[in-house]
């Protein structure tokens, strides 16, 4: 694997990881506090 391929892989992997963490945190956050609305 060339250097630029490794860099692209790390950048893409980081972006996917951050996005996955964001959605995981949002989902788990709803368990802590869903906003308080009634009926949902």
């Amino acid at each position, binding site marked *: 694997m060339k250097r630029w391929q490794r860099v692209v892989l790390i950048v893409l992997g980081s972006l996917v990881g951050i996005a996955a963490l964001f959605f995981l945190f949002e989902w788990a956050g709803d368990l802590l506090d869903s906003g308080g609305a*009634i009926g949902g």
Partner: protein
Amino acid sequence: MAAGKQSRYLAITGRTLLGIGLLIALFLFYQLFVTDFINSRSQAAAADELVVVLAQRRDDLKSPSTTAPSNTTTTVQVAELPELIVEPEVPVGEPFARLIIDRIALDAVVFEGVDRTTLKLGPGHMPGTPLPGQPGNAVISGHRTTYGRPFYELDLLVVGDEIEVETALGISTYSVREILIVAPTDVWVTDNIDGAWLTLTTCHPRFSAAERLIIQAELIDGPNLEYVEAVAA
């Protein structure tokens, strides 16, 4: 050999636990600080926008109804009622009011809508219920522990505490009458009530969405109070 294998397993377990710990710490940091930061920015921007929105909405105010609701008994003389000032509907996501509760030092801009996106901006008014200051049961929901936690101390309210809502009508003052804990599916708390009421809803207990804390307050002062009292009489 066995000792080497054992220490390798221990190392893997240790790293895994460290990773989980780091993830939990990141999660708590995000929920308790990052969401507050996001909310404080949106509230600051909304406070500026609200000044413009309120001025615009004051121009749009209309008063279409000055007669009592229809009654099947035709022999009853229907007295003329005080003027009811009707506020136009608000597009979802738009700021339109300010909620002030002195007891818990709350001063927040209220948005239209109770969807996830809107509630991240601040307390949200439930579409389909009357706007604050109008006859009926106006419902406002808000976060308890994240996104600026506007209703964090809502449980400190006691019967008789005052809640003010500033809309294009002016300031409507409510007095707390009831404090309830209900299930998230108990939609009856949003049902219409005779008179003019404000219902605040938030998650309960803190750091859990298992139940809802409900504050129901009755209008005691405001531009439409005379109308509400005349209808009730």
